[in-house]
């Protein structure tokens, strides 16, 4: 079956003729010798290793540090594409925050029958503990990583809303650094929006959401589980670039509902914590008592309004894949207009008709656990064995509430350097969206993940995917090159 995938550079022309505006990059890909591209790519990866831009692979031997493969051919967004994407993201993330405020508050959306109450109240991501507690400035998801895919010229679809502790922003920044150094000619050809505003934007957001009683120059920190965590590089990179302390739980102490950090000069009061620790490990007094990663008393300080937690506890519910399927309704409910960014068509297996459809079409569908992530716990029908399909059939029947199904998408491709020159490989995209209660900011760029194996649709780094730089062109830099 010869599927016609949309290519970000060649459109549907299969490498013959670039999309309008993409002539220069097409020429660059054609004319830069493959050996030269490979040399630059190796040099980027060597630099990443030297810098220690690594992630740890769980379940492997201790200390297994790997770099994520980097691909030298960038993905490009035109200014128009970006303008409509970022509008859609703003609308979606605003609605998502209103939804969270509502479900932990008045629950109007449930009362109005838009989202079924059991889906919210029985959801494993729902945290009754924070019920009725409005976080400072009403924001739960200060930082969202919205996973998107593209299936055609105007078809951007949201695949997943990551509203807990989305990672990957360090790759957005480091990939750009590598490209600026190794392919400077690209930045002479294209006027590209800078991504290095992100650390400033993050700091401004953190300061803006400090508790009202905090001083004008609030003390902001980043809380990491420690250097064995898979995303530790990102934690230290961000703390460094934002200019805040990188703390571990042992560096914090809560006294009289106030959070302090232990410094060489004694205690210093902490106002805002960007925590990269999951809810359940945050505070052993209220969540998992066996957690060594958390800070006893942290939640009490949070409830007393003495500290802002980024992202706020309880936001995980919007991460849930079953809630995801209601996002078009949720956006419409709060924004009063249709969602600008559509969802991928989703069958909720909790609904009998959808379950039947899913069971009848397993070989064509992607089935996901509602609480799975990282490419684990999913079935990709077309590339699975009969045995795997039967396993999922049994699991689905036993627990239909635990699954959703989606069509296998014709993910767009981007030329990617392989042993045999540049070939089309499927990509997805994760932009990072910041909310401070007054404004929503999406730094122009994001993380493009690429499936390095031919035909593969799985882009997760834990499953062998790589990354690319994502260039967003400035509005005045479009080059129609009408002679092409």
């Amino acid at each position, binding site marked *: 079956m010869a599927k016609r995938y949309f290519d970000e550079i060649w459109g549907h022309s299969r490498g013959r003729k670039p999309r309008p505006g993409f002539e220069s990059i097409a020429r660059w890909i054609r004319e830069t010798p493959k050996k030269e591209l490979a040399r630059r790519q190796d040099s980027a990866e060597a630099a990443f290793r030297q810098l220690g831009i690594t992630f740890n692979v769980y379940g492997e031997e201790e200390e297994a540090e790997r770099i994520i493969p980097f691909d030298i051919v960038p993905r490009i967004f035109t200014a128009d594409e970006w303008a409509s994407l970022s509008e859609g993201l703003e609308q979606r993330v605003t609605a998502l925050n209103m939804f969270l405020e509502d479900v932990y508050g008045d629950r109007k959306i449930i009362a109005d029958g838009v989202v079924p109450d059991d889906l919210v109240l029985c959801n494993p991501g729902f945290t009754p503990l924070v019920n009725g507690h409005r976080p400072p400035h009403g924001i739960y998801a200060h930082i969202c990583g919205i996973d998107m895919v593209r299936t055609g010229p105007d078809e951007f679809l949201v695949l997943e809303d990551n509203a807990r502790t989305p990672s990957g922003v360090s790759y957005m920044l480091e990939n750009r650094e590598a490209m600026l150094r190794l392919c400077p000619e690209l930045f002479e050809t294209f006027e590209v929006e800078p991504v290095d505003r992100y650390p400033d934007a993050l700091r401004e957001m953190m300061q803006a959401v400090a508790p009202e009683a905090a001083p004008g120059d609030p003390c902001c920190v980043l809380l990491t589980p420690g250097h064995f965590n898979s995303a530790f590089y990102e934690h230290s990179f961000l703390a*460094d670039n934002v200019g805040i*302390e990188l703390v571990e739980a042992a560096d914090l102490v809560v006294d009289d509902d106030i959070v302090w950090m*232990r410094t060489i000069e004694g205690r210093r009061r902490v106002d805002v914590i960007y925590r990269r620790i999951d809810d359940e490990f945050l505070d052993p007094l209220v969540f998992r008592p066996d957690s060594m990663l958390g800070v006893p008393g942290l939640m009490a300080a949070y409830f007393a309004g003495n500290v802002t937690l980024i992202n706020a506890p309880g936001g995980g519910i919007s991460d849930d894949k079953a809630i995801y399927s209601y996002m078009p309704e949720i956006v419409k409910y709060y924004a009063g207009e249709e969602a600008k960014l559509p969802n991928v068509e989703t069958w909720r297996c909790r609904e009998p008709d959808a379950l039947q459809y899913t069971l009848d079409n397993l070989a064509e569908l992607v089935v996901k656990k509602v609480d799975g992530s990282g490419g684990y716990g999913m079935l990709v029908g077309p590339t699975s064995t009969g045995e795997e399909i039967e396993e999922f059939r049994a699991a689905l029947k036993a627990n239909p509430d635990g699954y959703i199904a989606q069509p296998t998408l014709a993910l767009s491709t981007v030329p990617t350097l392989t042993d045999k020159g540049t070939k089309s490989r499927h990509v997805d995209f994760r932009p990072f969206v910041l909310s401070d209660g007054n404004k929503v900011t999406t730094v122009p760029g994001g993380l493009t993940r690429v499936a390095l194996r031919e035909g593969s649709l799985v882009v997760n780094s834990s499953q062998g995917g790589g990354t690319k730089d994502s260039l967003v062109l400035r509005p005045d830099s479009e080059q129609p090159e009408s002679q092409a």
Partner: protein
Amino acid sequence: MLARTASYLYWIGRYMERAEFTARLIEATLRLDALSARPAGEGAWSSALSVAAAKHDFEQTGESPTPSNVANFLTFSKDNPNSIRNCLYTARMNARAVRTALTREGWESINRAWLGIDGRSAVGSAQGTINLLEALIAENRGFEGALHRMLRQESYHFLMLGESIERTDNTARLIDVKYHIILPEGEEVGGLVDRDQWGTILQTVSANTAFRWLYRDGLSSRRVVEMLILRRELPRSIAATVDETAALLTELGRLTGYQGEADRMARLRQQRINATGIREIITGGLHEYLQAFIEENRLLSQAISRQFRFD
């Protein structure tokens, strides 16, 4: 600054210095072994183990103290807490955890030093060993260079403080062991073997030419000891590192507003060494002097930990 960060930086300084010292020690021992009029052989390697405080751990392995066994143990062994590998491993893990407090160059030089040794397990030929050690020492020079470009903030001072405390300890142990152990029975003081061995000591602290500058006449144990303990012109001498430690603590006090027991101990030590001559040291017993000094240095390190709330 976080107390944990300060502690990690201090220990990065100590472990990087220890790794370099051990590398120099092995290099100098190889040289002694190769160049001696009569090879000092096992004696030289056994004293290297003592200097590196690794004699006991090495004996636990049950291996015979051949040059390559000892060189491997000091360089790669996971069972030797002070092997170059373990020093670099710990320094790198600490650096990784506090890389926000290090410069990019500082982190990269530690990471490169670690990548240079990670995965290797035997030094190989004498030439191979020397190449590896030279590469490690060069990385360490890169690290020191990176240190000197840091902002003169707390991070810099804690790294330097660790380096300085470790240097004091290393130099004191080097003199103590070499002075009392190295001369094989039947060899005369001032003889060829004796001279070679004092040359090795200078090699370890990279002070061969320094000696020629400071003393126009011949190599003698008394002068070497004097230079290594009292001559402030030599940056690795005990007196110079003692001064440095006191100055770093003073600067930290200025930056943080904190002074305490560690400052008092460091200054007292400085005053004492100022008032001491080589004659008194030797008359009173060099070994006793050095042992007391090593113990005092350990107590000072503990006082630093308490003063800056390392735990």
